[in-house]
Structures are given as structure tokens and as C-alpha cells.
């Protein structure tokens, strides 16, 4: 923009578009511009981190660039370098910023006691201990060393169902821990 420098110099009354108009600027373009408009830049330029990620919805595996600023995601869009997606995203992939930033996300632990009618708050550490206690107790109570004369070394008292958006590393630790616990009813969306 040829007259950008002039505009940035202008202050106060001199920015009044009518005056700029009288000086010959086009009232339908240059003269009409506000200071905010002159300063506009894409917000991704302000990101302090750009993570190369992958869309969490279907299994096509589209590349995503996740822009974050001060610990908050400011934009998620396709990674143009990806040979799979070439920077494109479907509506779900395009909505993944909302998935992350959505105010409806539950970010605290909630607890419902047996027969309770409302949620209660529980801190994370306590909840983890309570869950560990229950796993250990249930495992002992339902341990099966043998069935029909055959060694089975397992518990049918603890089961698990995982979604298929789990990372490989997560699935691995799950399967490893469950197997060591003797829990065999370990299932995943992959069968559903």
C-alpha cells in the first residue's frame, strides 16, 4: 500500500476519513480504512509454538499444524507438507480447535458415590488412590487360579473398553498392565 506510511503517521483528527478523502484518498477503499485494519495480521504469526500433529477423528491420518500461544491453542489447520492430506481437513478436522478449547470440556475429576444422586468433586490424587484400591481389591476378590482344572491365572472381575483414538503407546501400557493384572476382558472400539 503506497500510502500506508502516511496513514500510520496520521493521528487524531487527521485520521478522520473525510479529511483523508479530501486529500484524494478513495472513500471506498483507502480513506475508509481504520487503524485496526491497517494493523491486521494472521494470528498464527503470533503463535509461540507450532506442533506437528495428526487429526484425532478418522483413520486417514491428516496432518495438522497446531498453533499455540501462551498455553492456549489459537488455530489448528492442515499441514500442507503431508503426503496424505496435502493440508486439507474435513469438517471434523477443521473443528478440532473447538474440540480442544470447548468450554463444555470437563477438566476436573468427578465422583459419584454408590446410590448417589449428584456428582461430587474429588481431587485427582485421591481419585487415583481410590481407583488403585478398587483394582487391587476386586482383583483379589475375583481371582481365578484355575477353571475346569486348568490354570487360568486371571480375573473376570475387571474389564476395560477403550476408544480407538488411544495412542499406540497408551494401548501398549494398558495391555501390559491389564495382562499383568490378569484382566483379560480388555476390548476396544476396534472390534465394534
Amino acid at each position, binding site marked *: *500500500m503506497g500510502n500506508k506510511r502516511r496513514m500510520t503517521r496520521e493521528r487524531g483528527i487527521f485520521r478522520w*476519513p473525510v479529511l483523508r478523502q479530501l486529500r484524494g484518498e*478513495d*472513500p*471506498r*477503499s483507502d*480513506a*475508509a*480504512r*481504520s487503524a*485496526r*485494519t491497517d494493523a*491486521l*495480521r*494472521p*494470528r*498464527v*504469526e503470533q503463535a509461540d509454538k507450532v506442533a506437528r500433529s495428526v487429526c484425532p477423528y478418522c483413520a486417514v491420518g491428516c496432518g495438522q499444524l497446531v498453533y499455540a500461544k501462551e498455553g492456549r491453542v489459537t*488455530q*489448528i*489447520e*492442515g499441514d500442507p507438507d503431508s503426503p496424505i492430506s496435502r*493440508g*486439507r*481437513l*474435513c*469438517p*471434523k*478436522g*477443521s*473443528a478440532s*480447535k*473447538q474440540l480442544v478449547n470447548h468450554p463444555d470440556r470437563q477438566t476436573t475429576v468427578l465422583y459419584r458415590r454408590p446410590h448417589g444422586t449428584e456428582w461430587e468433586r474429588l481431587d485427582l490424587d485421591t481419585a487415583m488412590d481410590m481407583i488403585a484400591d478398587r483394582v487391587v481389591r476386586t482383583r483379589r476378590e475375583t481371582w481365578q487360579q484355575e477353571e475346569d482344572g486348568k490354570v487360568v491365572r486371571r480375573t473376570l472381575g475387571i474389564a476395560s473398553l477403550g476408544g480407538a483414538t488411544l495412542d499406540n503407546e497408551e494401548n501398549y501400557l494398558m495391555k501390559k498392565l491389564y495382562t499383568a493384572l490378569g484382566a483379560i476382558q480388555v476390548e476396544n472400539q476396534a472390534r465394534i
Partner: protein
Amino acid sequence: MAERVGFFTDTSICIGCKACEVACKEWNDVPDDGFVFRATSYDNTGGLGASTWRHVAFIEQRVPAPGDGGPGGPSGAGELPADSVGPGVETGADGERPGAVTGEPVDRWLMASDVCKHCTHAACLDVCPTGALFRTEFDTVVVQADVCNGCGYCVPACPYGVIGRREDDGRAFKCTMCYDRLRGGLEPACAKACPTDSIQFGPLDELLERAERRVTDLHGQGRTEARLYGADPTDGVGGDGAFFLLMDDPEVYGLPPDPVVTTRDLPAMWGWAAGAALSMAGIMTAAFLRGRR
């Protein structure tokens, strides 16, 4: 002034995924537009407005067997134009609301992503009294949200029914062709997301050339109903910065068949108004001359 840029939306390869609608909203922070099941095929956002800057239309049709005739478009696409059947496109004086059912199997499902046309002669921009709407260095038309005072004039001025006023906010909004992104050398969010490249962004001249080639290709494949819309610089709005390849008449997609920028007639209007004003003065003078007697 930078080179003029624009959108070429090739509806013949649109898969109706609505990524454009969502990508637009994510980038531009456009609020949701309500949650209404409209029973109009897979379209539940209805049309462009203050809170929908990209909108995908869905039209279910039956292609009549050759010889069935059908309303031929101006492009002379007499062979294949689809008859409008089913609760899709309505034909008739009353443009009956969905609910009526006529029943032939659908074998053509048109999908098209609509957007602000960024007209060469933009009525919204012309009529905006505050200068909120302005023409950018990319020859696009953008509302400055910090200037708009919500007068609402641009809303009925647009011959395409694009711009709307958000009633809870009070201001007018529409597609900016991601003006902020353009300033950073990025392409608009919708074009970037579009999985099949139905939405193409680039220098307008290049897009026009590409579009002409695409029409030729399609005609070569026997799809003679393909035609460009908004690509003609001599039309009533001087051509669009966002133009389309359509597979049926524009009105089938909810687009005006022959739009005109209303300000084309403004000089004449001022003329008639001046005449009326003078008449007023004359009558008033006469009234006093007569009333004195």
C-alpha cells in the same frame, strides 16, 4: 494495489462435506447459526448470513431420460438439465416449503459451497454509510468490525443475499476472504481445508482461465449443463471475485440468475428524487401563493 485474488468454486467436484463452513468459523471466530433440523436434504444452515460465511447447498434431483425435456437453461443445456423432483428443488409459483413429497429415485445430488461474491461493483460497499465496508488492496470487499455501526443498509442492498446483521451483536458480517490471512500471505481457511479442491483460491485471472478449461473438459465429457456463474466482467455486478462452476441454473442453488448492483441506477434515482424535491418546493410555493388569496 496487489493482484486481484478470488475464489473459483467448482461445484462439480464438491462432496458437500462442509469443511469450508467449519474452517471458516474456526478461523474467523464466527458463532454458531442455530441448531435447526431443516429437512432440506443435508442442509441445516440454510444460507449465507452474518454467522454463516460459507454455505453448502444440497439439491436432490432426478436426471430425466433423454427426451423428457425439462427446463433448459440459457446456456442451452437442453440435454441434461435435471428435473426438480422430490423434496429438493421446488418448482412452482408458491415455491412450496419442504413437506410435499413427490417420489422418484434421486440420481443426482448437487452440492455447492456458496460464499460472498466480492463483486467488482459491490452494492454493500457502495451503500455503506460509514466506510466500514471497503475495498482492500486485494480487490476484495471487507467489513471493518471496528467501524460498522449496524445501520443494516448493506443487508437488503446485496443482490445475492450474502451479508447479514447479527442481531445480538448489532453489526453486519460476511466473508472477508480471510483478509488477515491474505495479509500474511496465507490462503483463506475454506480454500485451504477443502478436501477436493472444489474451492480454489488464487489470482482471479488464473482462476478464470482454469475455470474456462474445466467447463470445456466437462462439456467434452458430455456434461453440457456445466456453466460458469459470476465469471463475466460485463454482467450486472461487473463480474464476481468469487465465481462458480454450476451444474444447473443459478436459482436452483438459491443464486439470482441475473444480478445487478443496485447502485447502477443510483444516478437515475437521484434524478427522480431531485424532481420530487423540486415538485415539493413548487407545490409549497404554490400553496402559499394560493393560500394568501
